[in-house]
């Protein structure tokens, strides 16, 4: 079977349509299992009490927020190099989910920080760079929203995405050094006590759930983007008529 066949919107659209329910189902199943582990199986932390359980959402969200940006850059690079329309659609479809996970990571981090550090927000290197990552997502989406011509929006967004991905490590290290210069090690996330096995499992299962959710949502969003862009083609008209 030739996988490249699915680089065409007309063949990808029905494939994505078949895949979305499966990934949605997997996402629901893994979320249920992950939440069960995190609330009922994982033991109470002897230092942090019950409050630590928010990491089961926080850590997968933070992983996804970074990972999605890299995947977007990957699709952007492919799209710029080979001029494949679908790659840009994928990058664009992933962006809102990435921004959502970044926001979620910041939000849950604040909720965790209040009882643990006594502050909603500290200018820790990780928090600050996560905040800047959110800005990068917002900039990408704002640029996409401001350009009406999809061809231009795709390319402009892809270029911005690539510049951003080069910058992410530079931003991370600059913030890290800035942080150590200014406030010393008042708060350290890396000193976390070694985790119980079940806690790690809960986190991994939740991370897989986040993956499945991302795939399902991105595919669904890609489908609507494809229909919107291909609306003048024969097959898209047929699909729209059929589904209407």
């Amino acid at each position, binding site marked *: 079977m030739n996988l490249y066949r699915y680089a065409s919107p007309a063949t990808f659209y029905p494939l994505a349509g078949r895949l979305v329910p499966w990934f949605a189902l997997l996402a629901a199943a893994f979320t249920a299992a992950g939440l069960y582990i995190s609330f009922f199986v994982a033991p109470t932390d002897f230092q942090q009490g019950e409050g630590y359980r928010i990491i089961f959402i926080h850590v997968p969200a933070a992983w996804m927020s970074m990972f999605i940006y890299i995947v977007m850059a990957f699709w952007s690079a492919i799209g710029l190099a080979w001029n494949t329309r679908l790659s840009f659609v994928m990058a664009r479809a992933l962006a809102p989910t990435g921004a959502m996970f970044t926001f979620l990571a910041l939000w849950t981090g604040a909720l965790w920080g209040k009882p643990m550090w006594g502050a909603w927000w500290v200018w820790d290197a990780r928090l600050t760079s996560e905040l800047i990552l959110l800005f*990068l997502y917002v900039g990408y989406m*704002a640029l996409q929203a401001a350009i009406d011509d999809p061809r231009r929006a795709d390319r402009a967004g892809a270029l911005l995405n690539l510049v951003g991905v080069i910058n992410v490590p530079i931003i991370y290290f*600059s913030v890290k*050094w800035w942080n150590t210069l200014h406030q010393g090690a008042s708060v350290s996330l890396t000193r976390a006590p070694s985790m119980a096995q079940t806690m790690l499992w809960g986190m991994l299962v939740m991370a897989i759930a986040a993956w499945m959710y991302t795939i399902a949502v991105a595919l669904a969003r890609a489908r609507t983007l494809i229909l919107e862009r291909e609306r003048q083609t024969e097959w898209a008209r047929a699909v729209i008529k059929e589904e209407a």
Partner: protein
Amino acid sequence: MLRFLTAVIRRDILLAARRRGDWLTAQFFFVMVTSLFPLGIGPEPAMLRTIGPGVVWVAALLACLLSLGRLYADDHRDGSLEQLLLAPYSNALLALGKAIAHWIINGIPLLLIAPVLGIQFGLPADALAVLVLSLAIGTPVLSLLGGIGAALTLGLRGGGVLITLLILPLYVPVLIFGAGAVDGTLAGTGAEAHLSLLGAVLVMAVLVAPWISALALRVSVE
């Protein structure tokens, strides 16, 4: 090749010299923003000395953004940008020339004003010298990266606000190393490390930014 580059730079400087009002706006903006901080925070010298480097640097970023909106917009409107892109030279050269011209027009005046503003914040002489040096290395990066944003947002509605959203996150390392160098001098830990990193960022920006700006210009103009 060099002649094309100098021609691009000369042309922009000449245009700026003919329209002095446009050009001075950003410089006065820089002065006003920094002067507002003591009014908002209070005139206590110790406090002002601590925030001084950061305030001057943030104001420099904003002043730079203010003038970036017009980097390509005027040429785009009168059609000369398309002619320049059609020239038989690499478009990256055009982007580099534009960025250099932007730095000469907007960056160098900032360097000259910055010591005066630093004195307002009670910075000692050695910190002032480092402030100017850090701005001298850092502001070209602002012009180069900003050129990418200007090219991407060319001719879009609300381009001025959009460019800040796109570019400010990318300016974070420059701000940190630039203000950090001055802070380091004030704290007695030295500025060399920060200035070297700033220099590294500059080298990287010179190598990468003109090409990406050129690609972005082609996307925006086609």
